[in-house]
């Protein structure tokens, strides 16, 4: 049972005529995603990868009754585009841009709450229902169907770990990139709840990192409400305090958000924490065999 999206989800691409937008439209179509339209103000009437382009999101929704949208545009324009998508009634919004101002992100999330919509990101690689549909920029070939749900704060590191699983012939149900920023729409707990309800998901991998308290909150949720096995990998063990490691969230500040605190909270909740990315597949194999 796919979660969030499936092979029938009708997807718009906002910012489809840009370099990233057009390239990834092609990649998503190749994966099987139902891309029904694109939006690029001033470029209506064109077509990209055979997809019709509209001037406004409302116009595209009128023509194609889309349900989801993926956004490719420079960060200063992300708020306007996300508001437009939400106002036009789309229920899943995937925000690819990096460097979206935090206050813009907070306003987007507040409006999404009113509209009862799901926002993934910003600064995410998106999400994929393996073998069905992807709304994102992840490399297609690693995302093959199987029994493991994956949720991650970072992109390439998630590919690395999913790549290790694929090499070991372990596929995935759904893979969700939460995004590397301090304010992102979905959190670990939201996705863990979905995985717990999803009969196809037998085990879960969560990929976390230093900074913030999302992993600790997830640990409390796992201890109280998860029956399925969870394996974690955490990046940033060697990071010195006070240095921001690329992601806006990845910083140890005032003694908060350390690797040790996260690893301890997760271990206490019964989560096996892998000490290297390549240690994830054996732990998952054991978890699947124990079921």
């Amino acid at each position, binding site marked *: 049972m796919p979660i969030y999206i499936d092979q029938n989800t009708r997807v718009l691409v906002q910012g489809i005529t840009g370099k990233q937008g057009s390239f990834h439209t092609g990649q998503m179509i190749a994966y099987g995603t139902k891309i029904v339209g694109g939006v690029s103000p001033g470029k209506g009437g064109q077509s990209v990868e055979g997809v019709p382009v509209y001037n406004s999101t409302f116009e595209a929704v009128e023509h194609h009754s889309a349900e989801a949208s993926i956004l490719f545009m420079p960060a200063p324009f992300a708020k306007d585009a996300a508001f437009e998508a939400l106002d036009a009634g789309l229920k899943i919004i995937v925000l690819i841009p990096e460097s979206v101002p*935090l206050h813009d992100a907070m306003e987007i999330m507040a409006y999404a709450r009113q509209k009862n919509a799901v926002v993934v990101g910003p600064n995410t690689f998106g999400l994929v229902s393996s073998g069905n549909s992807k709304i994102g920029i992840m490399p297609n070939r690693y995302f093959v169907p199987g029994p493991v749900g994956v949720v991650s704060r*970072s992109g390439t590191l998630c590919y690395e770990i999913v790549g290790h699983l694929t090499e070991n012939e372990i596929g995935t149900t759904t893979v969700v990139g939460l995004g590397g920023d301090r304010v992102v729409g979905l959190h670990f707990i939201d996705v863990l709840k979905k995985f717990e309800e999803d009969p196809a998901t037998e085990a879960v991998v969560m990929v976390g990192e230093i900074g913030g308290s999302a992993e600790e909150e997830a640990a409390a949720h796992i201890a109280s409400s998860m029956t399925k096995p969870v394996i974690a990998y955490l*990046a940033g063990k060697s990071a010195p305090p006070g240095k921001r490691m690329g992601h*806006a969230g*990845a910083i140890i500040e005032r003694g908060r958000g350390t690797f040790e605190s996260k690893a301890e909270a997760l271990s206490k909740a019964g989560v096996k924490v892998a000490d290297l990315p390549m240690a994830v597949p054996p732990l998952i194999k054991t978890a699947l065999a124990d079921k």
Partner: protein
Amino acid sequence: MKLYEYLGKELFSQYDIPVPRSKLVESADQAGQVVGELGEVVIKSQVLSGKRGKAGGIGFASDFAEAQKEAARILDLKIDGLATEKLLIEEKIEIEQELYLAITIDGSAHRPVVLASLDGGMDVEDVAENRMIRWPVDVTLGMQGYMAREICRRMGVTGNLQKELVNFLPKLYRMFRDQDAELAEINPLALTPDGLVAADAKVTIDDDALYRHQELPRITEKTALELKAEKLDLAYVELEGDIAVMANGAGITMATLDMVQHYGGEPANFLDFGGGADLEKTAQSLELLLGTDPKVLLINIFGGITRCDVVAEAFVRVKENKGIDLPVSFRLVGTNESEGRTILEKVGIKTFTSMDEAVRHAVVLTGTV
């Protein structure tokens, strides 16, 4: 971007938030002269460190000689390794009570959150959890009067102080929102006979929003190399070790550093050259790393949006133009992997497909293990 205390207080003043009368000076003599205008004063080092007070960066004076002496002492201090360039000389205020007040961003709630406590003046981490009131604010509502009153009720604040706080909170919230702040912290917030006064100011502005705040000065805590990297739009952090690391993506770069340490090596840096970098930017990243004179170069590429052939071409170009004499451990997989591998083989560089092998090889190359 963290603001110096005096800049934070300048912002406060713009929002009608009371701060002590003050002068900014750069020498001991200037400090002495200010005493004449302000009377009894507090002399505060303007450094971006939370350890200022404990490190002796704050002094008191009531006449010219004392002020000159204290200012000279503080100007000579290194606080957290940082030199003091400016001193903020403030009138000494009469404090009846010290509070703690801050607004920051609560990622879990997607909202700004007000933190308020009657235990001001002390290290915020030492404040008991039940003495710190937390109130997330919905940005569509903004800071309403009832919220400020409710925060006061939960703090146990009544009477005149309540009136003061209900008036004070919306100003701080407005500044926080208008200026794209990540943090606006006042510790202590002082109750004086004339009302509430911000005795300190810790303000951090969201780096990603600086483009719409041209009026703010640019402050950096970065080293020269980190600044050079910033100009190239690279995420770069200097570390202590001898293995230069280059990878694409913040998470995997962190994981690479962790793995280097796991196998007994020490990384020289964090360098995430981002997703989908072109040949020029990739070459510049490499040149930057070579300029740090590391013992070994470790490159870890998992190409998604990043193309392996582009990384390989950039490497060859730098090798041919500038020379790469140090031992290299190169991991290359993902988009256009075989093209990339072919390009590197022509210049005699072998690549790994596994991150684990590449990292272990890099550590062996340092010769320390």
